[in-house]
Every structure is written in C-alpha cells, then in structure tokens.
C-alpha cells in the first residue's frame, strides 16, 4: 500500500489515487515498418521485470491525470522518488549510461 508523491500535485497521496502504467521508457520504434518481427515483438511484449529497482510509469488517475515516473524497488516496495516524464528521462538516461 504505497504513498506516492505526485510530481505534479506536489503532494503525497494514497496508492488508490494512482494506476500502474508498466515499465517506463519503452520507446516506440521510430520506424515500425522497418523493424523485424523479432524486434517489434520485443518492443510489444518483452519486459525487464527486474527484481530490484524498477523505473515505472504511474498515472494519477483521480488527481491530475498525468503520467509520471516512479523508481521503485520491486523486492521490498521502497521508492526513491517520482518525477515528471521529462525530469525522469534525464536521470534515467544518466543511470543507463553508467550501467
């Protein structure tokens, strides 16, 4: 039962206000027609599904209706923060670059 601080409403709110939106930053291929069947299928269905830190999208369904990004540990349900899509992108990219 999470408390999530919505990066748009700037307030900690109960999990029931939000809906889970799956893995964040699954980029849609820019040119789908040139994707192979395998790479398109990977985009559609393959997930990181990590045990540990997970960058994921949530929507503030009952509040501002914005999608945002939460970094959450799937092993113990701790969170380090929630950011707008644009803010999160920078942190995520920096993290991916060092990974």
């Amino acid at each position, binding site marked *: 039962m999470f408390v999530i601080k919505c990066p748009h409403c700037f307030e900690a709110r109960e999990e029931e206000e939000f809906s889970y939106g799956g893995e964040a930053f699954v980029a849609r291929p820019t040119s789908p027609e040139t994707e192979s069947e395998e790479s398109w299928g990977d985009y559609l269905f393959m997930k990181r599904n990590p045990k540990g830190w997970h960058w*994921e999208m949530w929507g503030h369904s009952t509040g501002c209706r914005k999608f945002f990004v939460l970094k959450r540990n799937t092993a113990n349900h701790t969170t380090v923060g929630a950011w707008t899509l644009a803010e999160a992108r920078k942190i995520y990219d920096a993290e991916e670059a060092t990974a």
Partner: protein
Amino acid sequence: MKKDYSIWKLLSQGLKHHEGWTPAWRSPEIKSSYDVVIIGAGGHGLATAYYLAKEHGIKNIAVLEKGYLGGGNTARNTTIVRSNYLWDEAAMLYEHSLKLWEGLTEDINYNVMFSQRGVFNLGHTLQDMRDIERRVNANNLNGIDALALNAQEVKDRIPMINISKDTRFPIMGASFQPRAGVARHDAVAWGFARAASNYGVDIIENCEVTAMDIVNSAIKGLQTSKGYISTSKVGCVTAGHSSVMAKAAGIRMPLESHPLQAFVSESLKPILDTVVMSNAVHGYVSQSDKGELVIGAGIDHYTSYAQRGSPHVIEHTAAAIIELFPMFSRVRMNRQWGGIVDTTPDACPIISKTKVKGLYFNCGWGTGGFKATPGSGNVFAHTIAHDEPHPLNAAFTLDRFHTGHLIDEHGAAGVAH
C-alpha cells in the same frame, strides 16, 4: 518405485511409535555434474524431474531450490484444478493435466487429496453468458466435461448463493465443470519430491543459482551457492522469478511478476461443497477439508517480488464474496498472504526451448499454475528429454510473441484462473 504409504504401514508404525518412517525424500550432497538440472523445486519443477526419471529414463537429475521445496506459489495458491479453457491449445494442455490429477495419488503413492467437487465460473452480464456458452461448447467439442447453467440451476446446486437480480452484478448463470476441483497444495510438492527422490533424483534445497555458464549459445553449467555444476540441459521452472533467471541467461521474457493475494477464513463446519469463481467481481472461494473458506483475489496491478500486495485488493475481494454469499459477512479472515505470479500478455504459459541450446523455460503460468502441475511437468520433461516440444506444448513457444500467434485466453475467454 516403492509404494509403501498405506493404511497397513500406518497401523504397523502406529504400534512402533512411528519410529520406522524414513525420510519422504533424500537430501543428498550435491554432485558436480548432472544430465539435467531443474531450477526450482516447486510443484512444476519436481513434477518435471519425476517424469524425466519415470518416463524418459534419465536418472542423473538434480532439482535446485534456493529456499525450501514447495515454498513458492505451490504453497500460496487457492488449489483450484480445472481444464475448461477456451482455446484448443490451452484446453488440451490443462485436460492432459486434469487426467494426470485423476490418477496422481495412486501414481505417486501420496494422497494429494484431489477432490473433484466441481468448479463454477459465474457469469454476471450478457457478455459473460456469451463467453460461457462459447467456452462450454468448445469444451464439449474437445471432449471436456462442461455445462452451461442458468441462475436457478446455479442456485439449485449452491443453495447459499445469492441470485437476486438487485445486486450490482446479478448472477446470470455459470459454466460448471464437474470433474474440476481442488487438491492439497503442499502434498503435491511433497508427493512429487518423494516420488522423484525414489527414482534417484537429487533434490538440493537452499541452493541458489547465481550464474549460468553459457558458451557459444549453449548451456554448459550453473554456478550455485553450493558450487559449480556442469550440465548440458537446464530446465528453468522458477515462476515469479523467471525474469531473473532469464536475465542470467541473457534473454528477455514477456513476463511481469505481480502479487497475487489470497486469504482463508477461520475453520467452519461444511457449508460450501464446490468451488465458485467469479472473474467479474474478483473472488474465488472454496472450502478446504479443514473447514476454512479459501479465497483468492485478483492480482495487484503493479509488479513485485515482495510476496505481498495492497490491502484494498483483499478488501475488495471480501466485498465480492459477500455479494455472492451475504451470509459470509460475519465469517472472519484468519490469514492472508501473497504469491508472485508471472503473467504473460496472453495469459498462457511459455513451455519452450530458448535461443540458448539446452536451456528450457517453463513459466508464465500467471494465476493458473497449480492446476497444471502434473501436466506441465509431464510435457516439459518431454521437451527437455527430446529437445523438442511435446505436441501438447508445441504452441506454447516464446516465438508466438513475435509472430503474433498468441493463445489469447486473456482477451477471449475473459476467465480468470
């Protein structure tokens, strides 16, 4: 295989203070090499090892378990067994499993208490009823027992159920599979462990796989917390942790691991002699031999490996049960828990070879794995032994997520497991 569990043995041991019972399964030292290694000593993994030994003559098998055997989803489910699936591929696989269930107690000489008390899948809308009709007809054409019932017929068989038209989701009818039922979950793991062990399978508990040794896209061995094991065939049956094992092998899976919660009531005198499932209201209920109402909830929407979910899911399911059975409002929840279920986009499992030679995956059972235990092990053993799928699992490949040939129990059946 020795079949020494019987009433006579029990009586004779009773006179000897039960001191003559031997271990149900051996706990041998791990060897450095095996013909086949199964990762995960849940019901599916143990069943795989059992059938590999029994039907395929492979004796040098290890089953590695990072915790204690049968401690994952095998120990955390609501024990429903049925085979009334819509699509041929799924129906045939689960029916194969159901047939194995029907002879399992005898086959493994361990009473798994398979109780064919029937399963009702309730329909609450006109579309539910169309889907039920469609599924029941498909089942009958596939030779699977199934009936479509109207609300009164449901009431006749379950007198406690509320079929009032004034409820938010009035019960309009149900599909009913008489041969379906429930079983004793722990007994399945223990029974398969004992039977596999009797065939010489080494079950190694508290042994975690830490890395996979893959050379030229072929499996060579496993690094474990108890040392290195060389092997050319590895079957991975780790349910909620399948993505973690896949990552170790450098492959991605179309899986998401979600909490699935369940709870039991305090023990009651017999009140419900069948299994009632409602996907529309998210509640599944049966009564165990011990008298507890065993109740399953819907999955939590987020991914998690923590074996717990959010309380509002349980609260909703309690409300759903009260909608179906208003008299259970004063019955009390004794214990709740969560498992980790690995869900696929089409709600069907993956029983498949991978691009790593000798590495096989059996995963993605979502909320429906328990019922498949013997069937899953049986076809997976075939797949590993022959390096080719059994006809019954040929459709359950990883490849279908690329070609689009999904087996869409999700979209089509709208029936939870």
